């Protein structure tokens, strides 16, 4: 299953890539593959913006805007002007422990 076309904010700079393979290891949607000793993006539309690749690329070759993707949180942030925060954050007060996010 894929989400909207061309909506993901993933960018990749091959010049900085050292071919360490970390991004291939962490991406849960196999967005990266190795080619000629460097990473490359296979299909950007599969990216879910989890941020794992950008966080774990030591060489700053990847950037992606990541955050919580539930609509209610985004609507709230649109209204309040803040960053979207997910309901499950209420867990700090001992509330929900669902699979949601």
């Amino acid at each position, binding site marked *: 299953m894929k989400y909207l076309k061309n909506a993901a*904010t993933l960018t990749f700079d091959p010049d900085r890539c050292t071919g360490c393979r970390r991004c291939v290891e962490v991406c849960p949607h196999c967005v990266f593959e190795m080619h000629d000793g460097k990473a490359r993006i296979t299909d950007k539309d599969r990216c879910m913006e989890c941020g794992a690749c950008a*966080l774990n690329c030591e060489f700053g070759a990847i950037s992606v805007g990541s955050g919580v*993707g539930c609509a209610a949180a985004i609507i709230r942030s649109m209204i309040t002007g803040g960053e979207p925060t997910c309901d499950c954050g209420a867990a700090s007060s001992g509330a929900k422990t669902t699979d949601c996010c």
Partner: protein
Amino acid sequence: MINLSSVKKKEDCCCTPQKNKNFLARTPEITGQAVKSLSNITRERPEWVTGILNTRSGLVPIVTTEWTRTDRIGQIRSRLGGYRMNYSVRPGLYAVGAPDSSSDVFISANYKLSFDILRRALRGISGWILVLDTRGINVWCAAGKGTFGTDELARRILGVNLAGLVSHRRIIVPQLGAAGVRASVIKKQTGFHVHFGPVDAKDIQAYIRAGYHATPEMREIGFTILRRLVLVPIELNQALRKSAAAALVILIIFGLQPSGILFKSAWTGGRPFLLFCLISIITGAAITPILLPFIPVRSFALKGWLAGAAAMAPLVTLTPLGGTSALLDAAALIFFPLMSSYLALQFTGSTTFTTISGVKKELRIWLPVYIAGLAISIVIIILYKLQSWRII
């Protein structure tokens, strides 16, 4: 690199320093403090703790890889969203089987279900489980929030003196934790090399046998019908919780008469609408998620709207539920598919492939549509009331 032998312990949970040099001493010298924490552990001992191991990192509970009935019931309840309270285990170190200094270290969240799934996956092997304090949230969510994160992991590794416990320098972190854990920083701060394990705990043993190598299939997070089905009860639960208000509004609209609110007309007039409401909730929060790949558009709002319209149109036009008033039919056809659409859009929060930029993009289009649809429905309902009171 930090000299690990000089690192002070920050944790006080059950990590009493041991004097004996033997890794697993047969007759441990139990200090006063150790006796206290030992009795603490045994007194509150959960069913899944089968013993205590005396290690260089202190007393470590041994856990079973079997699930008891309580574990299974707990799983079902947490999947139904029934736990308003914390469903968590105490963070810290645990042992599976009879681990020694060469055994693998698995990192987990302190959401009880995450922990249970991991220990069940370790059946037949020995290892250490290091549970992070994610405030009772699963790995995936907690990684997004940063509680399953670099700082917490580094703190725990140093806190339990993992470097003194095992002779190797590798830890296995669930792949879905990678969004919160920066492997290079862990390496720098603790000396441990992070291996990101497979997405699914059930692949862990195959992963280890392959020399800490995951196949592309193990790396990919699917969103199978089973996964979606598991999520449906929570979605429905949350949507239905909020629907009480909608039901009340419907009853008031239909009960409202020039002479006051009449219960009888509220019930007879409102009944079809209550049913519509229920059906559009089920369509948006259950049917759409289940049929996700079969609704041939990518936008979730549109998927939900299509499903809602497909359910609502025949009901309103072909069954006796509609038909009493053209105005009411119009309001139902405008409002309820949009409600399904909104609920379907909510489901993006639970999928494994939607993006925040995508949801924002959808909302920029659909939020005005929702507001307009709601406004039009209200106007139509007012017209209907005026008409039925013979004011116009």
